[in-house]
């Protein structure tokens, strides 16, 4: 039986196990000492304890993950998301040891792991990027910023993710920010190189799911809207993105497809964009943000909208088989929402709330999917991220999906830890959200509700 080493934990470990079961593969899970008794460890055919609880001594060490894959005699290593999933070192080490890495090639990971080279790749593929560019001194920064128009963002060329990004609303702020950003970039990424680009204060976060066969063939599986964010952390996602014009959709999809085809992208990936809701043009203004070269937390909304299994497709491709996705997926009917239930207290500034779970009841019924690793009596460890469960709901239109999700939240009962469930009930009931197309800064202005601001705490 072909074995798969799962180099991750939590709900995504359970998710990859489900994909293994679908394909008749044998899942082996790498666990830290804190996850020995996790649901994933119970569901897998075998669990290998690779190190102690802290991720820096376990899940963040590529050599331990590859060692575990060798010990398991695994043909494939699935990295999940986060941890080492986008580390070129892990992909390379897999290649050296004859293990198929269920993700892009190391050079792809390297190219998209660096903001500068990712932006360059986007430009090469004819993908729209924000006005701006690299600079070497403050004067040049000002020149570019004036060209792009304030406000602007200053970013590290060699940075990744949301780290080390500075906002400058005017020339004075830019002058103050540049030296700080440069020294941060030097400290964080070993290189002080910076670039400046236009900032869109009222934009939506829309991303395109792509799946490449590694030889230039790319399947595009529509867009997700992930604009409901708290400090750049996504909380609620949907597919399709509501209210985009056909021309805007085509611009997003075409851009993502060209970029993925250009680099011979292999496996599942996401091309993230900002869509400017201010301009009023058709297509809307679209700018490239970055590529997430892995399966994403929010992949289920695309799966349920299109009726596909992206993780199984990753595993098939890694095994040298056709990925099995439809070549030209038809437009999804209906609408899918995902709410991330985190073990955080939304009334206490989203303070993490690990601990012993008491009751864990999740909703059931038509169109409902729950991805979770949490069961009654589970000890939710404090070492890792706070994602406790993902509620995914599909219905025939967006209004029905919102209603169904509200019901699903009512049917969710988790005791022992605080969760973000109540936050989601608030968001789904909000007229702005129901109208569609909120921007990435909407949540920060919406939560906590006005009447609860000023430290009233959890009394509602």
């Amino acid at each position: 039986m072909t074995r798969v080493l799962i180099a991750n934990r939590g709900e995504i470990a359970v998710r990859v196990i489900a994909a293994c079961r679908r394909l008749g593969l044998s899942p082996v899970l790498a666990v830290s000492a804190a996850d020995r008794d996790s649901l994933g460890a119970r569901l897998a055919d075998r669990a290998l304890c690779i190190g102690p609880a802290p991720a820096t001594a376990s899940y963040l060490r590529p050599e331990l993950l590859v060692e575990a894959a060798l010990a398991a005699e695994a043909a494939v290593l699935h990295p999940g998301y986060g941890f080492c999933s986008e580390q070129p070192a892990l992909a390379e080490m897999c290649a050296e040891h004859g293990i198929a890495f269920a993700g892009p090639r190391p050079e792809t990971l390297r190219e998209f792991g660096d903001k500068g080279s990712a932006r360059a790749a986007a430009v090469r593929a004819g993908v729209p990027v924000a006005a701006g560019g690299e600079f070497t001194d403050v004067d040049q920064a000002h020149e570019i910023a004036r060209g792009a128009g304030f406000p602007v963002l200053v970013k590290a060329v060699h940075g990744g993710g949301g780290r080390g990004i500075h906002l400058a609303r005017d020339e004075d702020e830019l002058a103050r920010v540049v030296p700080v950003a440069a020294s941060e970039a030097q400290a964080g990424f070993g290189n002080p190189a910076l670039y400046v680009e236009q900032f869109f204060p009222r934009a939506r976060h829309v991303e395109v799911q792509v799946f490449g066969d590694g030889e230039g063939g790319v399947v595009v599986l529509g867009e997700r809207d992930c604009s409901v964010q708290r400090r750049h952390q996504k909380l609620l996602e949907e597919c399709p993105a509501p209210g985009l014009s056909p021309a805007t959709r085509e611009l997003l999809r075409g851009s993502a497809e060209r970029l993925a085809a250009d680099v011979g992208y292999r496996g599942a990936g996401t091309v993230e964009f900002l869509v400017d809701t201010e301009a009023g043009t058709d297509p809307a203004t679209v700018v490239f943000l970055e590529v997430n070269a892995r399966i994403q937390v929010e992949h289920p909304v695309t799966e349920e909208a299109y009726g596909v299994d992206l993780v199984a497709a990753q595993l098939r491709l890694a095994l040298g088989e056709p990925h099995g996705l439809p070549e030209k997926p038809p437009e999804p009917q209906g609408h899918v929402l995902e709410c991330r239930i985190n073990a955080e207290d939304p009334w206490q500034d989203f303070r993490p709330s690990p601990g012993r779970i008491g009751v864990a009841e999740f909703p059931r019924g038509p169109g409902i999917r729950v991805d979770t690793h949490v069961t009654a009596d589970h000890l939710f460890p404090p070492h890792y991220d706070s994602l406790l469960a993902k509620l995914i709901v599909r219905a025939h239109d967006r209004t029905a999906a919102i209603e169904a999700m509200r019901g699903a939240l009512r049917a969710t009962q988790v005791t022992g830890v605080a969760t973000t469930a109540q936050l989601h009930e608030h968001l789904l009931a909000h007229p702005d959200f129901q109208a569609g197309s909120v921007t990435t800064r909407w949540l920060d202005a919406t939560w906590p509700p006005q009447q609860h601001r000023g430290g009233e705490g959890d009394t509602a």
Partner: protein
Amino acid sequence: MTPPPADQPPSWNELLDLVARLDSSPYADVELDLPGLHLRMSTAPGTAEGDSPAPAPAVPAQPPTPPPAEEAQPAEAGSTTAGAQLVDVTAPLLGTFYRRPSPDADPFVEIGSEVTADTSVGIVEVMKMMTPVPAGVAGRVVEIRAQDGEVVEHEQVLVRIAPEGGL
């Protein structure tokens, strides 16, 4: 000295919080006394009975020094098995266990070897990176549980040691 009356014992939720942290931590034994609270936790069944007090090497609290980055391993993690009064020396991480520094060399230890806390009982290799495993306790090797060249998991018992002077 009487504890200050203002100092309330922690609430149950606070206690759960602590237990949650401890549960997934590497500590095998925890004992905590606060005014109005006594907490004792152990991963070893039967050790909490108190019939065989375990005077294992207790390192007194020291001024905190920065932990040595990624390599910070409690490699010497020893554990006492109740009843047998032996200390388990366990693997600090998953990898291949070697009993000798090189294929031609003599084993680090054999059954009967006398060891100090610093004596290496073997090495764990991960992708060509060698992590020596110190005995962690002075005494005599009485059992070798892991084979030369065997893949061992984190916290898997490698050798067992009868501590100096017994337990």
